[in-house]
C-alpha cells in the first residue's frame, strides 16, 4: 500500500484488491470500492481540475453528484472518451485512464491561469459588454475565439460504438434515493404487495448510511440495519432496485426519466454489452428521498485545493478510508462539521481548530468536540486561505459586529473542511412543477404544494437527522402505497441543530478578494454584487448575467448562498427575491442514452416496396421520400444522374418505361354515403363519376389551400379507390377521419388505408398496351373498352388486379395495382414482356421531368400551403355546382381572387442551355439591387431531353397574364432572362395520352 492517506481499516472498500489507474499520465494505486476522487485523495492528490473562467487550481469539493470542480475525462479508446465526469462518481477499475480538463499544458502549470490575473477586467457580463463592436467581428473573430477558450472537455473523435437501451416501466410506488428516508419508504411501500421501484445514483444503496459509524437503528449498528433492509427488499419479487441510476428528469403525469450506468464501472465490459439504459418509469405515486447537499462557506480563496465540504471529508474517511490531510481547519456555521471533526480526530487527523461563525454554538455535538479536547473558536470567521496548488494555511478572525472582523490569526494546515449547513435537494420536486416555500426556521426552500402525485421525505424536505429521516420516509412510503402500516424506529444517534448559515462570511481582505459562490461557473460574491449595482433586480436576470447556478451544476452547491448574497445587496429578504427554475437533467446525461437504439439504420423506420429488391439488383440509386426508399434513377455503365435521366426520359417518350409507384398513398372509401363524403372532402364533383372511371382529385384544407392530390377511381357505386401523394397518405387519412368522425358522423362511410396492400406498377409510353396485352386475362385494353382515365378489374399473370389507365407522363399509360405479395412477380413478368419493345425502368427523377414537361404539379413543390386550386391552374377541377366542400367558403374570400396572386406558369430561359435553380426568385426589371421587389419563384427546373432545352415551372404574381413577357432571375453571377410561357411544354394538345 503506497497510498499515504489511506486508513488501516474500516469503510466500504476492499484493501486487498489493489487497482492501478492513471491520472494525467501518472500511475496511482487505488482499491476496490474507490471512486477516482477517493483514490486520488488517498494518494494525497487534491488538485483535480482548473476552473472554467479563471483557470484557478481546484481540488475536489464534494463526494457525490454535486461535485463542481473535479471534472475529468475518462478514456478507453478514441471512440470512448467521456468528458465532464465528476471524479466523485467515477468508480475506479483496474486500468482506468483519466485526464483533467481545462488546462494547458498541465494541471500544475496552466497558461490559461493568466485570465486570473486579468480578472479585474473580466467582471460579470464582460463578454456582453466588450465584444459588442464592431458587429461583424462577432461572427468571425470574437465568437470563435471565445468558444475555443470556453467549453469543458473534448468530445471523442470517433462515433460512439456502444449500445444503449431503453425500457418503459410501470409501478405503483417509485422511490428516488436510497438513503435512510428512501429505504424506509421502500420498506413501507413493499409491505403492500404492490410494485415498488427504488433507484439511487450511487453504486451502493444506503446514501448517508454508508458513512455512518456512530448510530444504532432498532438496536443494530447502522451498517447492519442497512444490509438487512437491502436483503429484505431484494427478497421481495415486487421490488425492483436499480443503483447507478440518475433520476434526471421529472416529466408530466409522474413519468420519471432515469439513466442507469451498466458497464461504465467495469474494467473490461463484455463485447457488445450495453453501456447505459434509459428507464422511462410511469409511477402511480412517487416518493422523493433525494437528500440534501452540504453548502460551502463563502469566504476569500475558498476554492483552494484542500478546501472541501466537511461532510464530504467525513464520507471519504468513513466510507473510503481516506484522510483529507494531516492537519485540518474545520470552518463551520453548522453542527454537522463537529461530527466530521470528531471522526477526523479519532482517525488521527489533527484538528487545528474548529472555527464557528456562530457566536454561541451549543448542543451535543459541540459538547462532544470540546470534551474530546478539540479547540473551538466561537464567533470566528475563516477569512482566507494560503497556498498555491494546495492550501497550507488559513486566516481566521473574530466577528466583532455585523459584517466586521477583528484581528487576523493564521493557522497552518493542509486542509480546510467547511460547512454552511445542508440545502435540501428540491430539484426533482421543482421539475414536477411543485411550488417550493421558504422555511424561516431552517432558512431554506422546502417542497410546498405538489403538482403531481408525489411526496418528499427526509432531508429533501428538511427532516434532517437519522431518526427523523427514517420515520418520515416510512410514513411517506405507507402513504404512497395507500397501505396503513406503521413502524417506530428506535434510533440511537447524536443529532445537532439543523440550521446553518447562508450567504457570505465577513472578512477584512479588501476588494480584490475572491469568495466563490459557484465553483463550476467561477461566480464570486463580487460578480453578484456588481450585477445588483448595475441594476439587475430579478433573480432570473442575475442568474443569466452572472451564470450562477447554470450549466450542469444547476445550483446544487451554489443556489442558496447566491440568494443570500443577492438578498444582502438588494436589502430584501430571500423569499422576496424568488428562485430560478431547476432544470433537467439533475446531473448530465449522455446523448447516447437519450438516442438509445434510434441511430444508424434504426434512426427512422425504413419503408420499402415489394419491388425494392429488384431495383437494388439493377443498381438503382435511391432517395428518401418520407420514410420510403424510392429508386431515383437506374444508371447504366458509368452514367451520372443527368445522363441516366435523359436516357430514361427519351425511352418513355419513344418506347415505354416501367416505374414503381407503390409508395403512393391509397385509401379505400367505402359505404352508402361514399360519394357524398367524397363530394364534401374533395373540390371535385363525384356523384356523376361512373363506375370504372377515374378523376384527378384535389384536396384543400378548410382555408382553401391545396394540401393533396391524386387519381381517384370509382370501383363500385359505393366504393372509391383514392390515391394520395406518397408523403401525404397519413395526413389525408387523418383529415378524412377527422371530418368523418367529428363533423359528419351521420355519413355511413368506412375508411381503410390500403397503401401497403397494393403494389403499383406504372407502365408509361407508346408501347405500353402492346407490352401488357399478353399478360392480362379478361381485360380488354383497347381504347374503346379502356379509355384514358378509366379502370377495370381482372387478372394479370394469374393474380387479381385493379388496372387503371392513367398517365403522369403525358404518354399512353397504365397503373397496374396488384396485391403487394405478387408485386415483384408481376413486375418481372411485365419486365420480361417488355424486353423486345425497349422497356426501360425509370426512377423518381425521370418521373419528375416527364410530369414537368406536361405542366403537372407536385404537391409541396409547386404548392407550398398558400396556393389555391386556381393558383396552380386547376379551376377546371372544381365541382362548381356543389353547395359545399372543404375549403369552398375560404376560396370565396376576395383575396383568393386577387389578380396579383402567384400563379403557375412555365419559364423558358433565353439561353436554352441554362437550367435555373429551383427556389430562385423572379423579378420584373433587370439589374436591381437589394431590396428587390420579388414577383415569384422557380418551383421546378430541369433539362428536358425531348424538348432539347431547359424548362422550368414557376409561381409568378399575376403570371397567367404575363405570358410572353420577359422576366429575370437574379443570381450571384448575374440576372438570367426568362420568357413566361404556358406550363405545358410538351404535346400541348394532349394527343399522346390517347395513343
Amino acid at each position, binding site marked *: 500500500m503506497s497510498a499515504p492517506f489511506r486508513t488501516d481499516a474500516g469503510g466500504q472498500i476492499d484493501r486487498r484488491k489493489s487497482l492501478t489507474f492513471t491520472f494525467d499520465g501518472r500511475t496511482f494505486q487505488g482499491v476496490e470500492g474507490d471512486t477516482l476522487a477517493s483514490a486520488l485523495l488517498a494518494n494525497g492528490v487534491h488538485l483535480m481540475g482548473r476552473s472554467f473562467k479563471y483557470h484557478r487550481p481546484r481540488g475536489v469539493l464534494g463526494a457525490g453528484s454535486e461535485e463542481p470542480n473535479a471534472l475529468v475525462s475518462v478514456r478507453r479508446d478514441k471512440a470512448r472518451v467521456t468528458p465532464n465526469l465528476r471524479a466523485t462518481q467515477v468508480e475506479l477499475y483496474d486500468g482506468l485512464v483519466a485526464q483533467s480538463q481545462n488546462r494547458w499544458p498541465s494541471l500544475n502549470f496552466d497558461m490559461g491561469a493568466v485570465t486570473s490575473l486579468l480578472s479585474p477586467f473580466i467582471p460579470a457580463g464582460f463578454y456582453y459588454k466588450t465584444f459588442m463592436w464592431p458587429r461583424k467581428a462577432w461572427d468571425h473573430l470574437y465568437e470563435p475565439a471565445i468558444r475555443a477558450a470556453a467549453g469543458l472537455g473534448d468530445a471523442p473523435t470517433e462515433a460512439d460504438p456502444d449500445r444503449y437501451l431503453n425500457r418503459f416501466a410501470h409501478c405503483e410506488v417509485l422511490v428516488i434515493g436510497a438513503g435512510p428516508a428512501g429505504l424506509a419508504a421502500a420498506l413501507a411501500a413493499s409491505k403492500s404487495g404492490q410494485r415498488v421501484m427504488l433507484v439511487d445514483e450511487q453504486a451502493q444503496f444506503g446514501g448517508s448510511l454508508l458513512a455512518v459509524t456512530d448510530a444504532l437503528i432498532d438496536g443494530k449498528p447502522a451498517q447492519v440495519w442497512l444490509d438487512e433492509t437491502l436483503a429484505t427488499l431484494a427478497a421481495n419479487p415486487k421490488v425492483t432496485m436499480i443503483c447507478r441510476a440518475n433520476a434526471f428528469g421529472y416529466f408530466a*403525469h409522474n413519468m420519471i426519466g432515469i439513466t442507469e450506468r451498466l458497464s461504465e464501472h467495469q474494467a473490461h465490459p463484455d463485447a457488445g454489452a450495453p453501456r447505459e439504459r434509459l428507464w422511462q418509469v410511469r409511477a402511480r405515486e412517487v416518493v422523493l428521498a433525494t437528500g440534501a447537499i452540504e453548502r460551502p462557506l463563502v469566504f476569500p480563496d475558498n476554492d483552494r485545493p484542500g478546501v472541501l465540504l466537511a461532510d464530504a471529508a467525513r464520507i471519504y474517511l468513513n466510507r473510503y478510508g481516506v484522510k483529507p490531510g494531516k492537519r485540518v481547519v474545520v470552518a463551520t456555521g453548522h453542527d454537522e462539521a463537529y461530527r466530521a471533526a470528531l471522526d477526523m480526530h479519532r482517525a488521527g487527523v489533527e484538528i487545528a481548530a474548529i472555527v464557528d461563525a456562530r457566536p454561541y454554538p451549543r448542543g451535543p455535538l459541540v459538547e462532544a468536540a470540546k470534551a474530546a479536547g478539540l479547540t473551538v473558536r466561537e464567533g470566528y470567521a475563516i477569512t482566507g486561505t494560503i497556498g498555491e496548488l494546495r492550501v497550507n494555511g488559513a486566516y481566521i478572525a473574530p466577528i466583532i459586529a455585523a459584517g466586521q472582523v477583528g484581528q487576523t490569526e493564521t493557522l497552518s494546515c493542509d486542509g480546510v473542511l467547511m460547512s454552511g449547513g445542508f440545502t435540501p435537494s428540491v430539484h426533482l420536486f421543482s421539475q414536477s412543477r411543485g411550488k417550493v416555500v421558504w422555511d424561516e426556521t431552517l432558512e431554506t426552500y422546502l417542497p410546498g404544494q405538489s403538482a403531481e402525485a408525489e411526496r418528499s421525505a427526509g432531508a429533501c424536505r428538511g427532516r434532517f437527522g437519522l431518526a427523523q429521516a427514517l420515520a418520515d420516509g416510512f410514513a411517506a412510503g405507507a402513504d404512497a402505497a395507500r397501505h396503513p402500516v406503521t413502524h417506530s424506529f428506535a434510533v440511537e444517534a447524536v443529532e445537532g441543530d439543523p440550521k446553518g448559515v447562508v450567504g457570505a462570511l465577513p472578512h477584512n481582505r479588501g476588494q480584490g478578494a475572491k469568495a466563490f459562490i459557484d465553483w463550476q461557473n467561477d461566480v464570486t460574491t463580487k460578480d453578484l454584487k456588481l450585477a445588483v449595482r448595475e441594476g439587475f433586480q430579478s433573480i432570473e436576470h442575475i442568474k443569466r448575467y452572472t451564470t450562477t447556478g447554470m450549466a450542469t451544476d444547476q445550483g446544487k452547491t451554489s443556489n442558496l448562498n447566491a440568494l443570500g448574497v443577492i438578498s444582502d445587496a438588494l436589502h430584501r429578504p430571500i423569499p422576496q427575491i424568488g428562485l430560478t427554475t431547476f432544470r433537467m437533467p439533475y446531473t448530465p446525461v449522455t446523448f447516447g442514452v437519450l438516442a438509445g437504439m434510434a441511430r444508424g439504420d434504426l434512426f427512422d423506420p425504413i419503408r420499402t416496396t415489394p419491388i425494392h429488391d429488384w431495383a437494388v439488383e439493377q443498381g438503382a440509386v435511391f432517395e428518401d421520400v418520407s420514410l420510403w426508399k424510392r429508386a431515383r434513377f437506374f444508371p447504366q455503365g458509368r452514367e451520372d444522374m443527368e445522363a441516366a435521366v435523359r436516357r430514361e426520359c427519351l425511352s418513355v417518350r419513344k418506347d415505354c418505361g416501367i416505374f414503381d409507384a407503390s409508395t403512393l398513398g391509397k385509401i379505400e372509401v367505402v359505404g352508402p354515403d361514399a360519394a357524398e363524403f367524397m363530394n364534401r372532402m374533395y373540390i371535385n364533383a363525384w356523384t356523376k363519376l361512373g363506375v370504372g372511371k377515374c378523376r384527378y382529385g384535389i384536396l384543400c384544407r*378548410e382555408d382553401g389551400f391545396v394540401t393533396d392530390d391524386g387519381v381517384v377511381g370509382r370501383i363500385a357505386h359505393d366504393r372509391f379507390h383514392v390515391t394520395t401523394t406518397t408523403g401525404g397518405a397519413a395526413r389525408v387519412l*387523418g383529415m378524412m377521419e377527422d371530418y368523418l368522425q367529428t363533423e359528419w358522423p351521420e355519413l355511413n362511410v368506412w375508411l381503410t388505408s390500403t397503401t401497403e396492400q397494393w403494389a403499383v406498377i406504372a407502365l408509361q409510353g407508346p408501347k405500353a398496351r402492346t407490352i401488357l396485352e399478353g399478360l392480362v386475362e379478361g381485360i380488354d385494353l383497347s381504347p374503346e373498352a379502356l379509355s384514358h382515365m378509366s379502370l377495370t378489374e381482372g387478372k394479370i399473370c394469374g393474380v387479381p388486379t385493379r388496372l387503371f389507365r392513367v398517365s403522369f407522363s403525358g404518354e399512353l399509360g397504365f397503373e397496374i395495382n396488384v396485391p403487394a405479395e405478387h408485386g415483384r412477380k408481376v413486375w418481372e413478368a411485365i419486365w420480361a414482356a417488355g424486353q423486345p419493345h425497349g422497356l426501360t425502368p425509370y426512377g423518381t427523377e425521370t418521373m419528375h421531368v416527364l410530369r414537368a414537361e406536361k405542366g403537372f404539379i407536385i404537391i409541396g413543390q409547386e404548392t407550398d400551403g398558400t396556393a389555391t386550386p386556381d393558383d396552380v391552374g386547376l379551376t377546371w377541377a372544381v365541382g362548381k355546382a356543389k353547395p359545399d366542400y372543404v375549403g369552398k367558403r375560404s376560396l370565396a374570400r376576395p383575396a383568393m381572387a386577387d389578380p396579383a396572386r402567384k400563379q403557375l406558369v412555365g419559364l423558358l430561359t433565353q439561353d436554352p442551355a441554362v437550367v435555373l435553380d429551383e427556389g430562385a426568385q423572379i423579378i420584373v426589371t433587370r439589374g436591381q439591387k437589394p431590396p428587390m421587389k420579388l414577383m415569384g419563384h422557380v418551383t421546378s427546373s430541369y433539362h428536358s431531353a425531348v424538348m432539347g432545352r431547359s424548362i422550368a415551372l414557376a409561381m409568378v404574381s399575376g403570371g397567367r397574364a404575363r405570358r410572353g413577357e420577359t422576366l429575370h432571375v437574379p443570381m450571384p453571377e448575374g440576372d438570367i432572362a426568362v420568357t413566361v410561357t404556358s406550363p405545358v411544354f410538351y404535346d400541348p394538345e394532349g394527343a399522346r395520352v390517347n395513343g
Partner: protein
Amino acid sequence: MLLITCPHCGPRPELEFVHGGEAHIARPAQPEALNAEEWTEYLYMRANPKGLHAERWRHLHGCARFFNALRDTTTDQFVVTYKTGEARPDLKGPAA
C-alpha cells in the same frame, strides 16, 4: 410524457395520441351563409385559455378515434376525457 385516458381504451401514454386543437368548434352547416368576420372567427380564432381547456385528441395508434378532453393548461392535468359528440362537462377546475 402525458398520460391520457382514451374514453374508449383507457389510460395510455401520449406517444399513442395526436393533439387535435380546440374542441367544440363545429363546422358551420352552411359556410356560404357566413360573412367574412364570422368565417374568420370559425377558421382562425381560438380561445387559448389559461386554465381549463376543452381540446380534441385522437388515439391515433390505438382505436384511432377522436375524443375530447378538459385539460388544465397551467398544470397539464387532465380533468376529464369524453367522447366526441358529448357536451362539455360543467367543471370549474382540476379534480382534487
